């Protein structure tokens, strides 16, 4: 599995990110590091604890990372969640859907990267 295929699987924009980072090796390095990024766990924990402010920051970080790595699908869903959590807004109907979408997209992205990692490693 190539890096392009990995991006295609997760719904990312490989061309854009390679245009910015200019090196496949660099992109690979950061993509793999994404698996270790704690922001997603922080988001889930904060939501569970009801700390909406921390949850917002975590969602925001995910959004920033995704933007940097060109993970467009997860970027879109995390951005939607970020806006829902911004400025300490009370929970709106449909927020659960947004969270579910982030979870689904994160899982998809993670799976794609893991598959790539295994492919690269194997």
């Amino acid at each position: 599995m190539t890096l392009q295929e990995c991006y295609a699987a997760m719904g990312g924009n490989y061309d854009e990110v390679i245009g910015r980072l200019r090196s496949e090796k660099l992109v690979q390095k950061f993509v793999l590091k994404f698996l270790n990024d704690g922001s997603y766990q922080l988001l889930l924990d904060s939501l569970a604890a009801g700390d909406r402010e921390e949850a917002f920051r975590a969602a925001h970080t995910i959004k920033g990372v995704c933007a940097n790595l060109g993970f467009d699908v997860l970027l879109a869903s995390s951005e939607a969640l970020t806006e829902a959590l911004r400025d300490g807004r009370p929970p709106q109907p449909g927020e659960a859907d947004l969270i579910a979408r982030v979870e689904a997209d994160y899982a998809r992205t993670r799976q794609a990267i893991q598959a790539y990692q295994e492919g690269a490693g194997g």
Partner: protein
Amino acid sequence: MKNKTTRFLITSLVAVALLCVCVFSFFGIHMGNQSARTINQVGTLYMSSMSQQISSHFESLIDVQMSQLKTLASTIPSDSVHSDPALQEELIAQAKARDFAYLGFYGNDGTLEMLYGSQVKVTDPQPFLSSLQEGQQKVAIGTNDLGEKVALLGWPSPHPPTREHNCAALVVGLPIEYVSDNLALEENSDRAYSYIIRKDGSFVIRTADAYRNSYFERVASEYEDVNGMTPEEYIQALSDTMAQGTDYSNEFTMHGERYHLYCTRLPYSEWYLITFMPYGTMDSVVRSFSQEWGTLTILSGAIILTALMLVFYKYFGLTRQQLREVEEARQAAEAARKDAEHANRAKSEFLSNMSHDIRTPMNAIVGMTAIATANMDNAEQVKNCLRKITLSSKHLLGLINDVLDMSKIESGKMTLNMDQVSLREVVEGIVSICQPQVKAKRQHFDVFIHDISTENVICDSVRLNQVLLNLLSNAIKFTPDGGEIHVALYEEDSPKGDGYVRIHIEVQDTGIGMSEEFKKHIFDSFAREDSQRVHRTEGTGLGMSITKYIVVDAMGGAIDMDSRQGQGTTFTVTLDLEKAQVMEEDMVLPNWNMLVVDDDRQLCESTVSALASIGITAEWTLDGESAVDMAVKRHRRGDEYQIILLDWKLPDMDGIATARRIRRELGDQVPILLISAYDWGEIEDEARAAGITGFISKPLFKSTLFNSLRQFAGLPESEAKGRPQEHHRDLTGRHILLAEDNELNWEIANELLSEKGLLLDWAENGQSCVEMFQQSAVGYYDAVLMDVRMPIMGGYEATQVIRTLERPDHDLPIIAMTADAFAEDVKRALDCGMNAHVAKPIDVDEVMRLLSKYIK
């Protein structure tokens, strides 16, 4: 109001003038009368005294003679008889001794018995005789036998008459000249003269000119007017006065001259002395005085009138001026009111237009959103809707930007952001933006660059783009399908000096043009040609107003316009721009021979001269046919053109056809480049098939030519061909503090920026960022890149803290780097004291540009 005041002024002036004339006339007449009365009085006084004098003179004259006569009479004894010859001898002797001319006895029967001297006849015997008989001494007139007048003096006889003693008086005679000469009745030095008349008007003694027998006859025939009486009335009045024995005084006019007359009774006689004196001399004194008076009166009247006139005239002028000022003020107020109304109306119209213009794209957005929502599953439909929504949004954004620009202009807040600008990039950018519209309307579009030597200038590129885009999009908008649009750039020396260059940018179309009326308002805010033909055209009507402001007011340039309805419009923008101090690339190419083919002669010449400046010798021709001929001729000589530039649009045979012919004749060696102002995407395949080696897009700046041709000289293709070249400073070795809570993001940024030679330190949150900065040496960090959303302390707060630190470098550049890219985020970042804002994902070029800009 004006007329009213004028009328009042004129009326009052006339009234005052009339009053003046009346008062002075009254004075004049009154004084005239007064002087006439005075003359009369003086005359009367003078005449009466003169008459008295003559009268007393007469009396004394007669007294003298009477006393002689008395002595003579006393020699007659009382008992004697008149007929006594001795007595008579005695009397005669004595009378002669006393110089009497005549002597005689006057009998009671009225006979005059002469003792000596010729016989004398008494002219009016009756009153003479009766007076003598009553014992009065009397004077009378008689005539001698020669008809000469004789003055007779009678001495009454002391004896009562008897039969033999029938003598009434002793009478002596004197020549009348004795009396008249002594009385000096003739005209004297005063031109006064006198008559002696009887009651019936008959003359006793008269002067030479009075030839009639009676004064009354003379009066009747000669006198013209006697102080308002007819001569007859005067005669009556005179007779009445004489009958009463009193004096009479009057004045009359004879032969046009006025006279006084004075009549008084003479003693010893029934006679009246009547004296005349012409007003003449005596009058002249009074008259000259009165004339002087009159002149003075008239003069003073005239002076006062003149003064009055002057005052009125001045006042009139003042009033008129005031009226004029009032009128002007009124007109100015009126004009201001009209302007205000016009502006108001224009604003109202603008608002209604705007609401319409805003509603149109809004409706599209709302409608398309609804359609997209309803067709979520139909990806094609949704895409189509989104495309339309994007278009409408852009349009809406354009409208709002215009309004914002206008409000900036009106509040004087539009400022220019001067920076280095490449004219080539500006024109290329505009051409590429306009190409789709030009293509959609199948308009003939061309762009000419005439000898532009300075491509890099200092200007606000955004505003310059805005101006050109506005002019060009107007040209496209108002030019019907198939019309022509030309953009041309000229350069000349600037009057501002060597550091400047004057650029003319001309946008010409063959569109609908403008009406004369609209031309006047083209640059007004909210103006839009309001006629049927442009009813469909959308826009705020602010574009030209903004354009003019940018060009004229902000950039200090000029904008000219030439437009004919139905024929087209040409806008010319003239700007004096500062030359940019950049190291221009040393543009030199091998000394090739080239052929330039274009149907525009100017473009050919301009291109050839641009090529000459980069070391290429070029020839040019205007059509494909001659181009083939020239190329073939050279080929046969073995002196080939190294490169041929062909315009795509050529008359008769277009660029592609020409290329095909050349390829057929010359083979594949010579590179042929196609010049075009259009997007060549559509013709590329056909062109390549015809043997075209490559493309050059207009505008043909020197650098455009150089960059396009350098590949054929084996030089590497310029970076400028790709993205616009950035003139970043070398920031190698600079220390940057990067605050970022996410390790992954930090690593990415670190990786990318380290590659540019920057040395980065990582702060995990705002607090540690502040601490690291505090602990660093002053000036160690050149800038801070600050994430906004961080735990413990966010980027905004961290920035605020750093800005308040008491360190000389507390104002170091801080650039926000965040995933939030809303306008309010940018604003908030700047409000907190950050210098700039970049959005994630990290764009290295953008970050480097900002760092270059802010790092000192």
